[in-house]
């Protein structure tokens, strides 16, 4: 079983302010490689992942973390898919905070998740989807909690009893649940485009990415392409994450593969089917083999994509762009 978190559940305000004040928030270029960005993540950190299920997963950064043999990470994400299996199986993570965890509905219950959680090799803290969103939002807003009307009365709520507070509303007398703010150590976010300072623009589904970025102590942004700051300034109302909360910008085309990036590529379904198929036997062996082949032995991100295959890359991109065909 994973160790209990060392830090207080909710970061004291003065600590939050001090940590934020100490960050270099000036308008400066911060473009770097995946390998350089990895140094911003420490063993034991709480890492929040952008995207949801198979969408805009910061896979390239996870790939880099696994290759760098990061350990004992706590990971939070709105809904966790194969990237969670990879982080558990690689030993990078022993604690997942999420609302739902399996590769995806069509592939059934995750046997990797079952292996690590049922054998108590890893913690899986389950929060309702909205509650997790509200925890990030409170963290983004600089408040210690968010009131909510969900999770009451259920065992999902009961399992979180030591982390939430049930109160009577001082205005209305109603029952309310207070959800503790979540301020991750690091946020990993993948976007369609960003400038060298870290101003990020996202198309389509935004998931919890903006709140995660604003809540975190450090933000690593991977992006399909880096555009100029001039380009950003032509449509400032399309910027979703401001540069001063970003610590690293890494350009990684197909950085979510085999997941999707809105408008650019859909999930690599054939690869995901094959991946699921491998996990029908001994998941420890199967995952070790997968990690060996696609993670540790790949010479770099292009080689990883090459192992997935050019046809799949082209097909995923064709399907991805089709969302704009109407």
């Amino acid at each position, binding site marked *: 079983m994973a160790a209990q978190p060392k830090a207080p559940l909710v970061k004291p305000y003065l600590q939050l302010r001090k940590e934020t004040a100490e960050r270099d928030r000036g308008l400066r270029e911060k473009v770097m490689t995946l390998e350089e960005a990895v140094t911003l993540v420490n063993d034991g950190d709480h890492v929040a992942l952008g995207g*949801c*299920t*198979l*969408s805009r997963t910061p896979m390239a950064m996870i790939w880099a973390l696994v290759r760098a043999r990061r350990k004992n990470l706590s990971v939070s994400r*709105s*809904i966790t898919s194969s990237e969670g299996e990879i982080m558990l199986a690689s030993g990078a993570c022993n604690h997942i905070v999420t*609302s*739902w*965890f*399996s590769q*995806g*509905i*069509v592939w059934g*219950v*995750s046997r990797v*998740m*079952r292996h690590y*959680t*049922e054998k108590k090799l890893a913690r*899986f803290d*389950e*929060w*309702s*989807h*909205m*509650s997790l*969103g*509200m925890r990030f*939002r409170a963290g983004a807003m600089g408040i210690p909690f968010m009131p*909510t*009307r*969900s*999770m*009451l*009365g*259920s*065992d*999902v*709520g009961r*399992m979180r009893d030591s982390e939430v507070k049930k109160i009577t509303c001082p205005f209305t007398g*109603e*029952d*309310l649940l207070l959800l503790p703010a979540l301020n991750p150590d690091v946020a990993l976010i993948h976007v369609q485009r960003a400038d060298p300072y870290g101003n990020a623009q996202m198309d*389509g*589904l*935004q*998931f*919890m*990415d*903006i*709140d995660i970025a604003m809540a975190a102590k450090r933000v690593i942004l991977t992006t399909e392409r880096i555009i100029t700051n001039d380009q950003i300034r032509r449509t400032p109302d399309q910027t979703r994450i401001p540069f001063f909360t970003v610590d690293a910008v890494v350009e990684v085309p197909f950085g979510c593969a085999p997941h*999707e990036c*809105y*408008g650019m590529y*859909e*999930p690599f*379904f054939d690869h995901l089917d094959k991946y699921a198929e491998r996990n029908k036997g001994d998941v420890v062996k199967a995952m070790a083999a997968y990690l060996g082949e696609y993670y540790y032995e790949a010479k770099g991100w292009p080689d990883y994509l090459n192992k997935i295959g050019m046809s799949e890359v082209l097909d995923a991109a064709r399907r*991805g762009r089709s*969302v704009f065909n*109407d």
Partner: protein
Amino acid sequence: MTKEGAAKPYTASELLAVMAARLLRDGQVVFAGVGIPLLAATLAQRSHAPKLTILFEGGVIGPFIVPGQLPPSTNEQRCTRRANMVLPIADVLLLLQRGYVDVGFMGGAQIDRFGNLNSSFIGSTDNPTIRLPGTGGGNDISSLTQMIVAMKHEKRRFVPDVDFITSPGWIKGGKSREQRGLPTGGMWRVVTDLAVMGFDDERREMKVLALHPGVELAQVQQNTGFNLLADKNLEHTEPPMRAELDVLRDLDPQRLYTA
């Protein structure tokens, strides 16, 4: 609905989708999961409820689904095709709390006599037989709005008390739901391949409201792990019509969800 449009044969899943679709009313705002709920909501939209609005958990309001391109979950770009609006996950879920949603519509793995759903643990939480994927938005939807659940009618799925309340129905029946802090919403209908069930107004126990074509009440009871109440005016549903099945088969030509 006339018998003339009736068609056979149809699969259990198709029956489920058709019966669920008929529960939706025009103009409603429906928070739908993928699979049968999505198919049923889209069928309703294309038949009797053209002004129905579908919401997806991934952050989508009022999309059109492209036949043959069903989304793998509610969180990929296929869900946004020709949508009215795309918004962050927290904000689409907050629509439930604010009250803009009429009905939540999901599938279920395990349900009990009070309409509580479990998708978290089979067995104990300390040493589960199976750790299931968890709530997703299910807990939020069922905590904050009225619910329709569509699922296969099997004894192992219809249990007296779920091992774990992931998505709250009427909790322990009676007034226990509001006493636990949930004054709105609640389980409204459970649609299976055998029958349509509701809940007794006082005790909040599951009650058969209507039987599907060719199904007897005893058969429903046999496939249920607890004693079912039966409405005194027990109804019989009309069989799926050809037009309904045609829409489903157009939407899901590979029968991903309707096999």
